[in-house]
């Protein structure tokens, strides 16, 4: 194993997974909606941005500012894209979870 990946929080994992799913269309609202729809979690847009900011500082995601559009009242979009380090961390987190859960039957 090369560089030990930094650990990811629960919500960070959801956000990164949303980025992977959305590919080129990953900005605030689609990310928020993706998490709401798939993970069934009602999160606030502010929390999404806060998390993305943190992930960017860790070097897990990169952002690009798009062109202003009319439907946004002339405001620009900020697109996010997962970075190799982020992908590694995500893979690590998911496989840890899978390994931990393997062969278990979760009953009360």
């Amino acid at each position, binding site marked *: 194993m090369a560089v030990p990946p930094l650990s990811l929080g629960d919500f960070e994992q959801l956000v990164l997974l949303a980025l992977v799913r959305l590919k080129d269309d990953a*900005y*605030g*609202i689609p990310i*928020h909606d993706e998490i709401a729809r798939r993970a069934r979690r009602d999160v*606030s*847009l*502010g*929390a999404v*941005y*806060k998390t993305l*900011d943190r992930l960017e500082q860790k070097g897990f995601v990169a952002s690009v500012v798009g062109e202003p*559009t*009319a*439907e*946004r*009242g002339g*405001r*620009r*979009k*900020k697109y996010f894209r997962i970075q190799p380090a982020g992908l590694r961390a995500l893979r690590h987190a998911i496989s840890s979870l899978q390994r931990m859960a393997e062969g278990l039957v979760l009953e009360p």
Partner: protein
Amino acid sequence: MSRLPMLARAFLRLVDPNVREFVSGDLQESFDRLSASDGVTSARGWCVKQALGAAVTNPWRPRQRLAMRGDGVIRTLLQDLRYGARMARRQPSFAFVVVLTLALAIGANTVIFSFANVLLLRPLPIRESDRIGWIFTMDPQRGTNRGGLSIPEFLDYRAGLTTFEGIVGTTRGSAVLTGRGDAERVDVSYATANVIDVWGLRMQRGRTFSRDADRPGMPREIVLSDRYWTTHLARDPAVVGTTMTIDGRPATVVGVLAPDIEIGNLSSIDMWIPLELSPTASRLERSVRVTARLKPGVTIAQADEEVRRLAQRLAIEQSASNAGWSARVATTHEAITGPDTWAVLALLVTVVGLVLLIACANLANLVLSASATRRRELAVRSALGASRMRVIRQLLTENFIYGIAGGAAGLLVAYFGLNLVKAVSFDPFFRWVSIDRNVLLFTMGLAIVTPMLFSLLPALHSSRADVNEALKDNGTRSTGGQHVGRSRSVLVVAQLGLAVALLVLATLLVQALRNIANAPLGFDPRPVLTGEIELPRWQFAESPAISTFYEQLLVRLQSTPGIEGAALTNRIPLLGSESSGEVAIEGRPSTRPEDRPWAVPAVVSDTYFSTLGISRVAGRTFSTADAPDRAPAAVVNKEMARRHWGTPEAALGARVSLASDTGDRRWAQIVGVVSDVLRGDREAVNPEIYLSARQRPQRAMTLAIRTADPGSVAPVVRGLVRSADPDVPLTLRPLQDALDEDLSASRVLGGLFVAFALLALVLAASGLYAVVSYSAAQRVKEIGVRVALGAMPGDITRLMLGQAAIRVAIGAAIGVAGGRVLALGASTLLYRVSPSDPRTYVGVTLTLAAIALVASYVPVRRATRVDPLTALRLD
């Protein structure tokens, strides 16, 4: 794309600017999508929640950024504020005086601003009222420039005008409502059926008038006011659709208006009924008020031009009724305010502005003295490296605290002042005045600006102090230097001058008010009760029935003990309508239409002149001889006789006819001349023609009863009227009350002027006191030397009073000149008072001199009692 909810936008402003744009864009995108799918309400809720969430998770922290700048603006400001608050606590009496002065001055300004707010800023209940033009007719000969239209004229205008998209006619009146308990008189606005749509009024129940409701012969409809619906019908929703009997005719209630319309004189309307637009109505009765909505893109000036052209055409085509008349279009703001309103408002604004200036001068003086004692502190600050800017800023910030406290207290003063005004005034205008958002903003602005006004001068002085000198000074001898002394003198002189000017104005206005109240009316209102009677049309269609009812009523009243006289008139003097009519004089064919004689007509009973105390000048007044089948008789007033016959005697025997009798002219012979009665504006008298009620019975009359005991007579009269006919409503009130009510607005304004002038005087006197006692305190040592060298207390007193006298004299001279300027500006309000009435100017100057003498003598006397030994040992 629709705008985000206001609350959401507000929250977004708190979001870190680094992400604000992206969050806002996201919200905008989702908001439009959600509004389409889930409805606007839920989209709004979601949006606000998200914006709040974003503000919490990604807050903007401007303070960090500011604090990073070298100076630290916010930190310094907070420091200065804390220091200022500490200073204020250390000298509570100083703080109290400052806050009190500010509270009075700001309160006075707030009250006046709240008046201006109603007139200038408050939106009217009419939608887009700046697109509404008011069509007024004018006849310069009668001094009318806000006349109404007759109904046929209204129809001509409606057909002929192209610049308006909706033309509304309204006229106020009263009607008798029967069939629901006692007969009841209701206040009605008769309006064309489009009034609700064109004015953009809101209905809260039912519908508006049907489109043709104002055509003759259509079923009658009623729209109730919210107030009437509440007070008389207990907000019963089932009332819509029911039938009421109005003036004996059934009418259907179709709806209830929302309460927004109930402001000003619209607030007393009980119900709205379609105005019957009958083309055959009289062209001489110009009682319809016309408001019209401009077509998009049309200006008031263009509409005005069209209306003037149309009026010119009508003056030719309908010369019998319209010769000499023109018309114009006025803006809503001009239309809703009386002719004197602007003059009064401008004057009030000037006066309170001056009061504020005086207060500022006073406070500047106070702060100057206070900062003189702080010279050493400020010098130490400078010596330790504080820049001049820094010191000035500190002093300004400290006074800022007083401004805020004074503003808050001023708001309280204004609140109680307004309640007082409302309590003593009957004028509906004042009921309309309140402290709203505009007023609050204004007061806040004053609270911030005022401290800058009064503390800038002292701050400049203090910061200029010579550090070296100030530090050597041990504090007791702190004179503040020559500059300060001169500034203080200038301030005091300015205050005295402004106070004199205001006092002059207030004194003149009080005299004018007294003149109005005491103006000889031409009749004696004191022991007279009046009440309006309107006989229902359906029961009293015939003249004989009307005459019989009124004659019997008068006979019964006159035989009632306690009643000294009873009379009927269709026009009560001074308060009644003064619409004039053209008069034809037999044997004098009228030449040009502008030269035709005119008069204000009235129909009166035989006893009218004796009951109201109007004296006979020549001939006789009406009597039983003027029976309906005899030759018509007329009585004119002295003014009418003077205009057309020269003397009262010459008028007797001449025959006159009111022009409304076109066709079959009924000539009436002048049998008598009576004394003049003052006109409603109390400026002059109108020519008047009285006709006999026996010969011209009218259904609507005003009962006038002379009695020494109004309290016990009123129920008797009411009983008599009811026993004569239970369907006749009657309210009695003393005529004097009605006259007082008519003057109450002027009384309130006069009271305000006096209050402001007194405030100015008190401020100026206390300013003078402060200056004299301060300079006396400073000169203790000098006085000590003089006394030691043999000066007598009298010499000292003379010396110091002499200096005060010079200031007073200069102030008074400025004030007299300023007062004259104010008085000339207010001359339209000065009823029978000369703006340069010498007694006023002399009186005010002497009053000021006396007060100034007292204000200076007290501190001077204290100074002369100084023990020379103590004084010399100072320092």
